[in-house]
């Protein structure tokens, strides 16, 4: 048989199933590329969509398991914090606690905190990346860079020592349609949480869009019904990417691999209090996950710009935005698979926005500058 015929017969494309250009997958890709507006239109978020609900349920289940004794509200709220983890920000003060003193109830980290500078509306500048279309598949290089940044961070973690609390301030947007009003009651939620290594804690939720009961306060007793704060569940994780992924699957996913859960855990929970080596390894592990794409520089509702990656899957992509200077996650959200995040995270996409995290000396204290940050949050523009 002529070699030409043999080669033709061996053509791998002959055995591959190749979509037609009008197939669903091809059409979805086309829409992503040309930035077709989201299919649901109107700017609202399909908060009830099965896929989105499923993913949220996965996150909540996983994190609730970490806090088995809490009330549903507390567990849910904490789950959001944990599931989305830490924040966006710059490391303002480094903790003096060493990696070796992280065991629960052991040593004390001191005044480590991460904070952000909000960009007020008047100080906003046009995005320098405004017209650049999506960049797929550069995630490896970006995550490598973030791994390097994370590895060079302060050696401290944010595991609180005796008498200390981990403070987390985050905002959960509830999906304000572009045309005005709110798609969910009360619009945004501004959440402050104080967590101790012994599982005691306090949470204050402000809902500035609510006409009534605009503040909810929750307290958890010392010991927390045996709860262990799995913010610190990075302990014992291997730092080799494959081994880390396997350990995450075992520890957080009950042994059943779930890329969405892995992405969520890696981009948030393991970012909260882990030391640089672990956070760096997390980025390297993310680079090995299939369907993780780089979406480019994106601006969030607070005006911060970060490197954004996504786990692309239907019906919703999981998106995380990172501060390129610190490797801290700034925002976490789900967006419809067909929507293209080219320039900014729109408020209607309901991102979890991480504003500040740090160690404080009491269950009511806040890191320096928090009050000013809270006053600068433009929540009214997000709910009206």
């Amino acid at each position, binding site marked *: 048989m002529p070699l030409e015929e043999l*080669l033709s017969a061996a053509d791998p494309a002959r055995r591959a199933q190749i979509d037609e250009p009008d197939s669903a997958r091809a059409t979805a890709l086309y829409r992503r590329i040309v930035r077709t507006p989201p299919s649901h239109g109107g700017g609202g978020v399909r908060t009830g969509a099965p896929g989105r609900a499923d993913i949220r349920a996965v996150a909540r289940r996983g994190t609730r398991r970490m806090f088995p004794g809490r009330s549903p509200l507390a567990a849910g709220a904490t789950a959001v914090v944990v599931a989305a983890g830490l924040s966006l920000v710059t490391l303002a003060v480094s903790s003096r606690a060493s990696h070796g003193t992280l065991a629960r109830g052991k040593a004390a980290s001191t005044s480590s905190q991460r904070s952000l500078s909000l960009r007020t509306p008047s100080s906003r500048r046009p995005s320098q990346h405004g017209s650049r279309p999506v960049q797929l598949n550069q995630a490896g290089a970006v995550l490598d860079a973030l791994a390097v940044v994370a590895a060079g961070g302060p050696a401290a973690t944010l595991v609180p020592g005796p008498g200390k609390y981990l403070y987390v301030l985050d905002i959960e947007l509830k999906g304000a349609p572009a045309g005005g009003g709110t798609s969910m009651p009360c619009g945004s939620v501004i959440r402050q949480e104080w967590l101790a290594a012994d599982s005691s804690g306090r949470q204050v939720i402000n809902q500035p869009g609510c006409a009534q009961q605009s503040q909810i306060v929750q307290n958890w007793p010392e010991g927390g019904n045996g709860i262990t704060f799995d913010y610190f569940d990075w302990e014992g994780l291997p730092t080799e990417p494959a081994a880390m992924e396997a350990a995450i699957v075992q520890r957080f996913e009950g042994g059943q691999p779930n890329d969405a859960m892995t992405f969520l855990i890696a981009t948030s929970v393991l970012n909260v209090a882990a030391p640089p080596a672990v956070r760096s390894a997390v980025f390297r592990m993310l680079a090995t996950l299939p369907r993780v794409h780089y979406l480019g520089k994106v601006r969030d509702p607070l005006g911060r710009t970060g490197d954004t990656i996504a786990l692309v899957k239907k019906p919703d992509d999981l998106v995380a935005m990172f501060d390129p200077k610190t490797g801290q996650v700034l925002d976490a959200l789900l967006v419809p698979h067909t929507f293209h995040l080219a320039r900014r995270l729109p408020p209607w996409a309901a991102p979890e926005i991480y504003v500040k995290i740090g160690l404080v000396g009491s269950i009511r204290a806040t890191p320096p500058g928090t009050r000013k940050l809270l006053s600068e949050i433009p929540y009214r523009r997000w709910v009206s």
Partner: protein
Amino acid sequence: MPDDDPCWEHREQRFGALYREHYRSIWAYAVRRVESHADASDVVADVFTIAWRRLSEVPDPPGDLLWLYGVARRVVAGKRRSARRVHDLIARLQANPVVLSTGSGDQLTDRLLDAVARLRPAEREAVALVHWEQLSHDEAARVLGCSANAVAIRVHRARGRLRRALAEIAEPERAPQETRKERASAASAIVHDSPKATGG
């Protein structure tokens, strides 16, 4: 807003035509060169994203497909570099394969694909462009950025290597001291090369 811009509409029409016309060709190009379905999907996405971004540089047909092949070639090369850097990705692909390019079930075909994979990169790409993408030497030269003569030489050398590889299947028990010339001669019994047209 792009939706209101007539230039945008024209741009999207042109891109849409390009996409519909060549989507399958780029997919085929990708599956011939990467190991997993996911990687092939990434290559296609990258190629058309670049085409969208640089639409003004895309030549009119029939040069548009060659331009896309040229982009795809660089995208695949970049993917391979990335895969090497993230060595664990390779392990993952091997452990959880959705492999497109191997496992035909036919020993001769598998051996041929294996031999193609072991060709020098420039020769492998030339063979693939000529035999799988069905390009002429001139067209392949435009994709590769070299002369048609260089393509012809690479293809000629590659065919020789492939014939020798296949000859080893025909008579694997042949003594190791057998000369290359003898093996090539034996291979001719089962493989008759046919020249590829070199017209543009």
